[in-house]
C-alpha cells in the first residue's frame, strides 16, 4: 500500500533540504561565492557606468541580477550531485524497491532545490538592500523576484536531476560545471547587450537564453516594470522548466527500468 503522493514528496523534499543544510560545502558556496564575485566585479567595473547609454549609475545594482542566475547554476550542480550520489551509493535502487512513486522522487528532489533557491534569493536581495540598492519595482517587484527565483530553480534543478539520472556520476556532473559557466560569462552579465561592441560576442550574448534570464531580474531592480524583459525572462524560465522536467522524467523512467 503506497502512502499518498504528497507525503512522499514532503519526506523526500525534507531529506533534500536537510542534506544540503547539513553540508556547509553545499550550502555556503551558492550564497557566498556569487556575492563575493559581485562585490569584486562591482568595484572593478564601476567606471563602466560612465559609458554613454549605461542604464544606471550603480554597477552594483546593475550586477545584482547575476547572483540569482549564478546561484541557480550552483543549484543545478547540487541537485545533480546529490541525486548522482544516491545512485552511486545504491540509495536510489533501494528506494525503487519501496512503494515510493518515481514522480515523488523527482518532485521531492526539486522541491528541496526550490527551497534552497528561495533562500539564496532572499540572501541576495538582503545584501542588495543592505548595500543601498533601491528596487525600482518596489516590494511587489521583490515578491515577483522570489517567484521567478523559484521558477528558475525548478528549471535548473530539473536539469541537474536529468544530468544525474543520465550519467549516474557525481564527477561527471562536476565536470559539466565549466560548460554551464560558459553560458553565464558569454551573456550580458557585465555589459548591457546594446553596449557590447564586439559583433560575435553581441551575437552569442543575444542568442544565449541566460542573457534574458539575467535581464528579467535586472529590469525589476533598475528599470521597474519592463513588460518585454519580464515576458522574455518568464517565458524562457517556464520553457526551461517544462523541457527539463520532461527530460528528467524520461531519464527517471529509463533509470527505473535498469534498476
Amino acid at each position: 500500500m503506497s502512502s499518498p503522493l504528497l507525503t512522499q514528496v514532503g519526506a523526500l523534499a525534507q531529506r533534500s533540504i536537510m542534506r544540503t543544510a547539513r553540508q556547509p560545502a553545499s550550502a555556503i558556496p551558492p550564497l557566498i561565492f556569487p556575492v563575493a564575485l559581485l562585490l569584486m566585479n562591482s568595484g572593478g567595473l564601476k567606471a563602466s557606468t560612465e559609458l554613454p547609454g549605461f542604464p544606471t549609475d550603480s554597477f552594483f545594482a546593475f550586477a545584482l541580477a547575476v547572483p540569482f542566475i549564478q546561484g541557480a547554476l550552483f543549484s543545478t550542480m547540487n541537485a545533480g550531485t546529490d541525486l548522482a550520489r544516491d545512485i552511486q551509493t545504491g540509495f536510489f535502487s533501494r528506494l525503487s524497491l519501496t512503494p515510493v512513486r518515481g514522480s515523488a522522487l523527482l518532485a521531492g528532489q526539486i522541491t528541496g532545490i526550490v527551497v534552497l533557491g528561495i533562500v539564496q534569493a532572499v540572501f541576495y536581495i538582503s545584501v542588495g538592500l543592505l548595500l543601498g540598492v533601491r528596487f525600482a519595482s518596489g516590494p511587489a517587484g521583490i515578491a515577483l523576484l522570489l517567484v521567478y527565483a523559484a521558477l528558475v530553480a525548478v528549471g535548473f534543478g530539473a536539469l541537474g536531476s536529468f544530468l544525474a539520472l543520465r550519467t549516474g556520476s557525481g564527477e561527471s556532473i562536476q565536470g559539466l560545471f565549466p560548460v554551464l559557466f560558459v553560458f553565464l560569462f558569454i551573456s550580458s552579465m557585465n555589459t548591457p547587450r546594446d553596449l557590447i561592441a564586439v559583433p560575435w560576442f553581441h551575437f552569442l550574448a543575444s542568442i544565449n537564453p541566460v542573457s534574458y534570464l539575467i535581464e528579467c531580474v535586472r529590469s525589476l531592480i533598475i528599470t521597474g516594470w519592463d513588460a518585454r524583459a519580464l515576458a522574455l525572462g518568464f517565458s524562457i524560465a517556464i520553457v526551461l522548466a517544462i523541457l527539463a522536467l520532461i527530460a528528467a522524467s524520461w531519464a527517471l523512467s529509463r533509470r527505473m527500468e535498469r534498476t
Partner: protein
Amino acid sequence: MRLWGVVSGVAWRTLKNVITTPSLLLPSLMFPLFFFVAFAGGLSQVQNVPGFDYPNGYTAFQFVFVLLQSAAFGGVFTGFGVARDFEGGFARRLMLASPNRTGIVIGYGLAAILRWCITATLLTVIALASGMKVGGGPVDLIGLYTLALIINICGFFWSAGIAMRLRTLQAGPLMQMPVFLLLFLAPVYVPLALLGGAMHAVAKFNPITYALGTGRGLLAGDATQVGLSFGLALALALVFSVWALRGLRSAEAAG
C-alpha cells in the same frame, strides 16, 4: 646529479600525467581562454570609459591579466597534483625512494612551469590571431613572460606548501581561493586610477596590481615600476619557497 635525477623524474611523471589526462589538461587550457574571450569580447567598450588610457586596446589590456592568471593557476593546479599524490600514498613512496627530497618540490615546480608554457603558448597564439596589438620589443616581451613565470612559481609554492601540510585534495579551495581573491582584487578591468572606493584602497596594497601594471606596460613598450614589480614578485617567490620547503619537512615529520 642525485638532485637532478629526482627533479627530472618527478617533473616528467607529473607532466605526463597532466598531458595524458584530459580532465587535468583541458581545464587549465580552457579556463584562461574562456576568461580571455569573455573579458576581451564582452567588456571591450570599457576602453571608451573616460580616463582609460591604455594605448594597445582592451584585448591587450585583458591579455596580460589572463596571462598572469593562467600562470598563477598553472601553479595552483600542479599543487592539486601534489595533494593527490599524498592522498593516494604515492608521495610517501616517492619520499622513501628519493635521495634528495628537496628535488621532489623542485620537480613538481618544474612541471608547473612546463605545464604553464603550454597554456601560455596557446593563449598567446589566440590573442595574436584575434588582433592583439603588441607595442613592446623582444626585451619587453621577455620581461612580461618572465614576470608571469615568477608568478607561476609563486602559485605553485603556495599551493604545494598547503598540499604538503594537509595532504588531501579537500584542501583544494584553500589553495585556490586566496589566489583567486588576490587576482580579482587587482585592477582587472580598468587601470588602477579608475578604480573607486574600497576596491582602489585594497588594490593599492595588492602586489598583483604592480605586476599587472608593469606587465601591461611591457606589452605596450612603455613599462613603469619594473624594479618594484619584479622585486615584489621575487620576494613572494622566496617567501613561498620557504613555505613549500617547510611543508615538505612537515610531510616528512608526519611520515
